[in-house]
């Protein structure tokens, strides 16, 4: 292992800019002459009393620093690509065996359907946790046909599932640009500025009403927020699986949204009962009594109805716009 404590602070900060976050999180402010010191001698030069106030001491600080560097290095490491996941059946609420071995590939869209409380969330949780027969359903999840590395379970950088929930709010007081930039920096991606502008651009293609980079995120409409988060998740999130909890019809082009996720090679799982979304997918997993009841392949015949459904949908959208423009609906 590299001895990071021997690093000269100035060089360290150049090579690993995230060290600044570490120092900041302990309230450590560097003076000009500190930059030429090694981390080892800098930490040793700190006042124990001041550190104790912050709830730390020199030895622990050194240890935390080393742990931090190791953790950050491993999060920069390239992920082994997830090509497909396999769900091996377990048991439903009544102890009946799920007779299933379901393989879902990159770029595939699968809907999960079933009444509330039927076990949709458990299935998604099993996938997120990479269940190994150790959850109530006793399902097994394989990645690329194999038992995945256990560290995936606990590592926030190797999370399998990114979740886009329905009732999603922003709590930060930032503009769209600042917000996406902050996310990009936390993901340690390269060319942050470029990524940020791509995301805002893509989000605007999905959103019914356009927004600007300097729009505060808290003033985005529901549709704009969802558009921004879908573009952000498609482009920034490292998680290979995107779980969407219903995409509301209002203010977002759902077809383009799915296309973007597919283009970015995500595995898309949607908990939805919307006929259009369900037909845009390749398959539907039907959940009943806590178990996978069956898997329906979306047939050509079903798909052929998509145009008709979309026509209906566009009609409604048109009427919605009329209302928005202050027109009447006397002739529709």
């Amino acid at each position, binding site marked *: 292992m590299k001895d990071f404590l021997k690093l000269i602070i100035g060089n360290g900060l150049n090579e690993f800019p995230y060290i600044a976050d570490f120092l900041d999180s302990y309230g450590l402010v560097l003076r000009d002459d500190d930059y030429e010191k090694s981390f080892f001698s800098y930490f040793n030069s700190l006042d124990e009393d001041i550190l104790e106030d912050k709830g730390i001491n020199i030895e622990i600080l050194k240890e935390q620093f080393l742990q931090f560097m190791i*953790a950050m290095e491993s999060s920069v490491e390239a992920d082994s690509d997830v090509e497909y996941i396999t769900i091996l059946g377990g048991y439903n609420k009544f102890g009946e065996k799920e007779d299933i071995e379901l393989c879902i590939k990159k770029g595939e869209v699968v809907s999960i359907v079933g009444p509330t409380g039927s076990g949709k969330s458990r299935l998604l949780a099993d996938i997120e946790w990479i269940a190994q027969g150790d959850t109530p359903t006793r399902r097994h999840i394989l990645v690329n046909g194999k038992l995945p590395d256990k560290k995936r379970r606990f590592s926030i950088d190797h999370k399998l599932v990114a979740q886009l929930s329905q*009732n999603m709010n922003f*709590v930060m007081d930032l503009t769209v640009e600042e917000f996406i930039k902050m996310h990009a920096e936390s993901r340690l991606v390269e060319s942050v500025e470029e990524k940020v502008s791509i995301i805002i651009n893509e989000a605007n293609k999905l959103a019914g009403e356009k927004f600007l980079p300097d729009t505060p995120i808290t003033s985005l409409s529901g549709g704009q927020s969802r558009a921004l988060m879908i573009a952000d998740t498609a482009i920034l999130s490292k998680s290979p699986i995107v779980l969407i909890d219903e995409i509301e019809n209002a203010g977002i082009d759902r077809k383009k949204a799915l296309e973007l996720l597919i283009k970015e090679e995500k595995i898309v799982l949607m908990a939805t009962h919307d006929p259009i979304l369900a037909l845009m997918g390749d398959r539907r997993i039907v959940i009943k009594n806590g178990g996978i009841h069956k898997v329906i392949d979306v047939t050509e015949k079903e798909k052929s109805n998509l145009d008709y459904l979309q026509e209906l949908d566009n009609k409604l959208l048109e009427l919605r716009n009329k209302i928005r423009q202050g027109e009447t609906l006397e002739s529709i």
Partner: protein
Amino acid sequence: MKFITISGPPSSGKTSVILKVIESFKQKGYKSGVVKFDCLVTDDDKLYEAKGIPVKKGLSGGLCPDHFFVSNVEACVEWGIDLNLDILISESAGLCNRCSPHIKGITAVCVIDNLSGVNTPKKIGPMLKFADIVVITKGDIVSQAEREVFASRVKIVNPKATIINVNGITGQGAFELATLLEDTEGIDTLKGKQLRFSMPAALCSYCLGETRIGESYQMGNVRKMDFGGDKG
């Protein structure tokens, strides 16, 4: 008996998480109990009682809650052992950010919520920085991006910890947390164990009931703010 300390800022969702975790423990066949530490008032003990979970409540009142915790925790463990519990959880609110309730060799959990803001992780001291497991709650009401930024900020201040998202309402993640906590080693007593870090100090005239303001009333462990050279 396995003993676990769970702490976190007020209203971060500790009780909800513990209730869900205990449900999972029950499924796994464990008998669990809770000691709830708080400052002035708590009704959370009733929530545990309603679920038939043995619970003891300790209110620190006018004392530093941290000091109250450490002076009573040993007796709590004895209580749990007397009741033949398999797992005892202590729940305490970190009422100041310098709180340091974790014990060496005892599984330490910190609960912190997504709504508290991205700068919160760095403001919290030993309670978060020296926890073995950090549970992040309220993920369902913020965006995926905020969840990821928040988790990465937690990782900066506690790179060793296992970070896990738990939804205290739906229980998503609680089963997984219970599985993690199951690995805790059993203990017979806390006697001789050590805190992971010293607690915030307090020993001044105000600790002893002084109410008057002014230099001449201040004795003991007193510290002054630095206003630079421009004062007087």
